């Protein structure tokens, strides 16, 4: 991997992040909604509002506010949330204790189920299996996640009482309870993910099995099993990696609906609240965080391509397979 490539990538990552942050800043200042009004509600009197506005600094000119934010951010200080009166950076870091394990658990579930399932479906070649999967996967993708979440809670939390509801995620205090608290949300997130990824795996693999190189591999005496796992699956996994990357970034950047339904204090719940309350410092901080997550994960997926397919490596020539 050449140095110039890395520098170019890094430069474009920084520019993308900056653009996102600037856009979010000005969009939220232009759309209506005064944080002081929203925080205090209908019963606030003028003195309370004025006191809060000057405390929040929302009465200062816009360029001032942005410059203040940017210089703070460069020093690692993202300001203080208007709604929660706590440092934004600390709040985001606290939420990672929910969002990152949730993303890992969900993506692990997706991978563990969808890849074997996809392979099975590609190799099964049975009309019945294909048909039933096609219906199930459409169901999996079509069911709204909040509804699936409520059903899971009703079944496992209320009817069967296998998993207690309303447990807290706190890895130091009680790791087992934290894991239990994330189980149902992870399943709810994984369900549509499994449906989508299994389709990609199956489609990709079926496609690869028809390729000439497969025929060549088999005719030179390679076992079917080896040909499938060593060559076909590796090629089929290319698009799957992209999809997994997108799903993962989505969860780390906040599984808004699932977190709301399960009352899980992750990035997503923080994001909806921040937007609803026009909590400018929190919105800015989260925008920065999400931009960085997406940009870095995209980069990570690109690196994974290189692992899976040597041809993508710069310097790696287009050898004959």
């Amino acid at each position, binding site marked *: 991997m050449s140095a110039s490539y890395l520098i170019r990538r890094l430069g474009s990552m920084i520019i993308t992040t900056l653009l996102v942050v600037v856009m979010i800043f000005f969009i939220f200042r232009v759309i209506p909604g005064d944080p002081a009004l929203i925080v205090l509600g*209908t*019963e606030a009197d003028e003195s309370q509002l004025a*006191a809060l506005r000057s405390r929040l600094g929302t009465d200062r000119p816009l360029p001032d506010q942005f410059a203040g934010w940017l210089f703070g951010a460069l020093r690692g200080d993202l300001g203080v949330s208007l709604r929660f*009166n706590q440092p934004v950076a600390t709040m985001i870091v606290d939420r990672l204790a929910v969002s990152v394990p949730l993303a890992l658990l969900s993506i692990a579930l997706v991978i563990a189920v969808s890849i074997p399932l996809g392979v099975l479906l590609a190799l099964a070649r049975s009309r019945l299996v294909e048909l039933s999967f096609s219906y199930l996967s459409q169901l999996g993708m079509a069911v709204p996640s909040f509804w699936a979440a409520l059903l899971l809670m009703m079944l496992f939390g209320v009817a069967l009482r296998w998993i207690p509801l309303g447990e807290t995620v706190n890895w130091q205090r009680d790791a087992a309870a934290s894991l239990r608290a994330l189980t149902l949300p992870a399943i709810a997130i994984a369900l549509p993910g499994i449906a989508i990824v299994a389709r990609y795996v199956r489609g990709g693999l079926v496609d690869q099995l028809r390729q000439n190189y497969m025929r060549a591999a088999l005719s030179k005496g390679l076992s079917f099993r080896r040909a499938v796992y060593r060559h076909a699956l590796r090629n089929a996994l290319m698009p799957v990696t992209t999809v997994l990357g997108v799903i*993962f970034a989505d969860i780390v950047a906040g599984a808004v609906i699932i977190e709301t*339904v399960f009352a899980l204090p992750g990035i997503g719940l923080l994001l909806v609240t921040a937007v609803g309350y*026009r909590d400018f410092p929190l919105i800015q901080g989260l925008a920065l965080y999400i931009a960085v997550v997406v940009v870095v994960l995209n980069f990570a997926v690109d690196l*994974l391509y290189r692992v*899976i397919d040597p041809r993508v490596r710069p310097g790696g020539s287009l050898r004959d397979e």
Partner: protein
Amino acid sequence: MNVTHSQVGKALLLTSVVALLMGACAAPRALPTPDSSVQPAAPMDTPAPAEPTRLVLRTTTDPDNLDPHLSAASLTQQIMLNVFEGLVKPAPDGDVVPGLAESYTVSPDGLAYTFKLRAGARFHDGKPVTAADVQYSFDRLMGKGSPEGKPLTGSLADVESIATPDAATCVITLKQVNASFINLLATLSVLPAANDGQHDKAPIGTGPYRFVSYEPQQRIVLEKFADYWQDTRDMIDQVEFRIIKDDQTALLQLQSGAIDFTGVSAEQLPTLGSAFKVVSHPANSVFILAMNHTRPPFDTPKARQAIAHAIDKDAIIQAVFDGYAVKLGTNMSPVMARFYQDGLQDTYPYDPDKAKALLAEIGYPNGFTTTLSVSSHADLYGRTAQIVADQLAKVGIDVTIETVEWGVWLERIYTNREFETTLIDFTGKLDPQAVLVRYVSTFRRNFINYNNPAYDQLIEQAVRATDPATQVERYKQAQKVLAEDVPAVFLLDYQFNWAMKPQVEGYTPYPIFFHDLSRLRLTR
């Protein structure tokens, strides 16, 4: 870089690479728990009773501020009135009873209030409550001593001075008679001067419960204050308010035993089953269809009367609240018993023909078009809007429903007054003045631009009355003016339904947002 040719398959490899990468992003291990869980006050010398009793209640949103002087949200007050007290306290019947002041006297001219502080009242850090703390609290509320000198509330504008002749006495002198003054004090908290600068982080009050911790979007934890000036032995030891936004989630958590207490909507009641106790009571709210009086034809009384005739309040009560609401005819709920003027509900009964006739009279024989702007943050606005639009269509008024975000509603409609019609529910107050002042022409939150000098005069007379009977009389007259002039269509007062596990005893409704924990008991 070379790919291993393991037999395990590429899937596993992929998993581990992804996991490794993500592990580098942020590992879940050493994340500190939010240090918002501040621990004020020294540990209490509890005589270690059997098992501490514990109750988990649900609340829907985070507190707007833990500092009671900076907070304005009713839902914050609902919790924090257990932590803080004023010189007087609210009573369930809407009156005020002695709080930190064990008694008070009013001078014959109605201007000077002398409060005798309760001996033995203590802050949660163990220090006694002194007149200096009362002075500090009122100075702070009135902006004295702060660099900008801005008051934290406008409600004390009538206060001339505060004096503390001795450590247990406090004299507040008013500029002019204000009949509401004593009611105001019920929600103006006395804070310890020694905790200055920390009120929003480590609040210290004098109430029966002390603040333990707050974790954003998760919980507020309170603990019984054993040194409270009333007997606390039977009170519940630990109380947690779990912040759960979604109603359905809260219901499931109640059913699974994760929480013990939650508000439920009328439509959720039937699904609750018999396993839970339900306490229902009128909310002391006023739900109105507001019309902007600067936008024709809403400046014409007959147009407003026509709309009032066209609206079937009973249908709304049935359709949106499953019958769990009381019909109103003026801007007050029957909960305000002493001040409430009954019999105004049918000043303009449901009568579409009459409505059409009135519209024809003022030159709208074919009705008109208007926009009904409603906030999306609660279900009741959108659902009521559908019914209102449907009912108004029957008299030829063509309504376009516009849904806006709560933040937009507060700014554009409530503050900048850019709207034609809207729906809003006003939350209950202890004080009739606070309820009726909304229609005084000069009131800052008179967002419908109502202007009726006769009404303004009645309200002024009421608040300046030294004689309680005159005061009540003026407020009742003011309600009649509202009923006849229909500045807004006064729809209903909905009910709160609190579902709780059967062991919870003593839930006591108040006319304001207040879960009075000191009255709750847990039976075995």
